[in-house]
């Protein structure tokens, strides 16, 4: 079977707890800065954990007048604003009907639903509470009139969105796709994770033996995808492959052996027509929960074989928290920036490695390296597993 059409990631934009744009995100990652802080925008007084990766000011947009009120939509628009600043993509330089939007989310516009149910009965609220509303707000802001797709594979959503975006290009449905993920912190999700007792009051310490859970974060992360043969200028990298698999095990807990993630990794490598020996760097989901990090390590060892011990594996969730629908897209961008800049960001707060997590997790400080092929893994509620294969250019 012939290889699938290659899809280029031309550029990326982001708004994260680490700063208003992709450059701030990258600089903070490599210098070991943290975006975790006391949550201020939402009333968290009754919650056990009151910290997270909260964005104090959304992006660089000077006035939000006339733009959507919902925070989820604003995160997307701020990320798109950063993307457009790098690519001159607004106003659209091509037929708007050929520009698609594909975004992933775990929560959609649920905060608008919370407000509506709390008595703010503005008619718009409920419409904005639907999970696909922010994607349409983004399309409207961009002026895009091609397909608008929302995917919701929980915390693997950002990876799924990039893959679906690539499929739209390969299928000829669009000539350019703005794809990525987002999620906003709100009481709904903070209360939910609080009830699950998966949040930590300590630092987020992926792969550390003292790890005690995750912290949530919020972000918007978008990339401009174009068929590689249509790109004339610089590009960030290539989206080589994608794989997904369902655990079929439990609604909230990962399958204890990580078989679903292993299948997703194998499928992504097969899609990319590559083998484990080709992988130079792994961006792990690495949530710092007791189960996740051990299971993910086991899955990487089985899927990559001896190569798992030879390549750096990092997690950036210690730096900005778990940004849910945005996480996989941000981690994909981090991979490509690592290749471009020749530095792999460290796994923040990893000081005492867990003996069961015995791979090279890049503790301490950023490491000089220039990976060519990168694997990024994601896991989510419902046993959603996703894996992306990225290639440096």
């Amino acid at each position, binding site marked *: 079977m012939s290889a699938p059409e290659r899809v280029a990631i031309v550029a990326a934009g982001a708004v994260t707890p680490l700063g208003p744009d992709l450059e701030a995100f990258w600089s903070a990652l490599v210098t070991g800065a943290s975006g975790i802080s006391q949550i201020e925008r939402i009333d968290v007084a009754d919650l056990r954990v009151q910290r997270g990766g909260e964005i104090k000011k959304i992006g660089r947009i000077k006035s939000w007048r006339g733009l959507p009120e919902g925070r989820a939509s604003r995160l997307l628009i701020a990320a798109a604003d950063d993307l457009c600043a790098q690519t001159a993509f607004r106003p659209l330089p091509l037929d708007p009907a050929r520009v698609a939007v594909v975004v992933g989310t775990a929560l959609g516009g649920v905060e608008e639903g919370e407000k509506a149910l709390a008595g703010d009965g503005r008619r718009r609220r409920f419409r904005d509470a639907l999970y696909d509303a922010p994607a349409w707000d983004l399309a409207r802001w961009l002026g895009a009139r091609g397909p608008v797709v929302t995917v919701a594979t929980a915390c693997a959503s950002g990876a799924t969105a990039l893959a679906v975006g690539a499929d739209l290009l390969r299928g000829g449905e669009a000539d350019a796709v703005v794809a990525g993920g987002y999620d906003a912190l709100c009481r709904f999700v903070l*209360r939910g994770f609080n009830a699950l007792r998966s949040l930590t009051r300590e630092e987020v310490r992926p792969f550390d033996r003292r790890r005690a859970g995750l912290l949530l974060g919020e972000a918007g992360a978008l990339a401009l995808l174009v068929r590689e043969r249509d790109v004339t200028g610089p590009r960030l990298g290539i989206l080589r492959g994608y794989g997904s698999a369902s655990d079929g095990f439990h609604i909230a807990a990962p399958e204890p052996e990580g078989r679903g993630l292993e299948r997703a990794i194998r499928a992504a490598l097969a899609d990319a027509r590559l083998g484990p020996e080709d992988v130079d760097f792994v961006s792990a989901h690495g949530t710092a929960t007791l189960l996740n990090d051990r299971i993910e390590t086991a899955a990487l060892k089985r899927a990559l074989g001896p190569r798992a011990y030879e390549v750096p594996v990092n997690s950036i969730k210690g730096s900005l928290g778990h940004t849910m629908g945005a996480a996989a897209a941000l981690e994909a961008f981090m991979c490509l920036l690592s290749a471009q800049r020749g530095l792999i960001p460290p796994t923040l707060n990893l000081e005492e490695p867990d003996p069961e997590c015995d791979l090279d997790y890049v503790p301490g400080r950023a490491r000089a390296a220039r990976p060519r092929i990168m694997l990024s893994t994601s896991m989510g509620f419902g046993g959603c597993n996703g894996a992306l294969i990225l290639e440096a250019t």
Partner: protein
Amino acid sequence: MRAPGVRALGLLTGRPPAAGAAVHALARPDRPGDRFRRATRECLLALAAVDAMLEDGKATREAIAGERTALLYVTAAAYGASNREFVERRGGVVHFAYTAPAVVPAEVAIEFGVTGAYGILIGGAPATLRAIEQAGRLLDAGTCDRALVLVVEIFEECADLHAARRRYHRWPLVETAACLWLEPGAGELSFRSSRAGGRPGRAAGPERFAAAPLAELAEWLRGPAPEPVELAGRWRGEEARLRWTRVRSHARESAA
């Protein structure tokens, strides 16, 4: 694109309510076992739709188990019920994980042992047509041997909120759970999506929830209707069309 073939389709739709009610509701299915004690109505309806699909295909659950089965889930609004309950009961009743749309296909994956590729699309009828097209691609690429397109739409718990959007819908809202079993086929399938006009995100006419195309397909499968099948739907101003020939799979035709 080479079209997938329909092996089976399970469809459950709500019954007409008392005069004046806006929702044709589906009852919460009974399902034995402690595992389902906390499951939400949309999850149980998804399981019932798969049961109905297996019955239609005269197949056992083993026929869809394993990593060679892909699962694509579509909904526009089914998560509304669990989200609302979680918000209004302050998180005390619904297990938080059940508020995630991903949990509906997860329950199917757990119950029937489906562990292959998966996807979840949020949107109305165009998203369902896109999911059928994606399933065709997965089959065409050899990523899976069979693909299930699962759709659940429930409205009863949020009927008052949907009423605020009534100008976008044709009333009444019919609750539906459906599962479509696709196999490699021999026909042709083309999918087109375009804007129906007006501003992006604004419906230019009556919207159709995600289940509508599968309800239409079920109707078509019941009779000797001519091919190609044309399915269409509009949501938030996107209008999608699917044109499909040789819709029935070889196995379904043989069984007939």
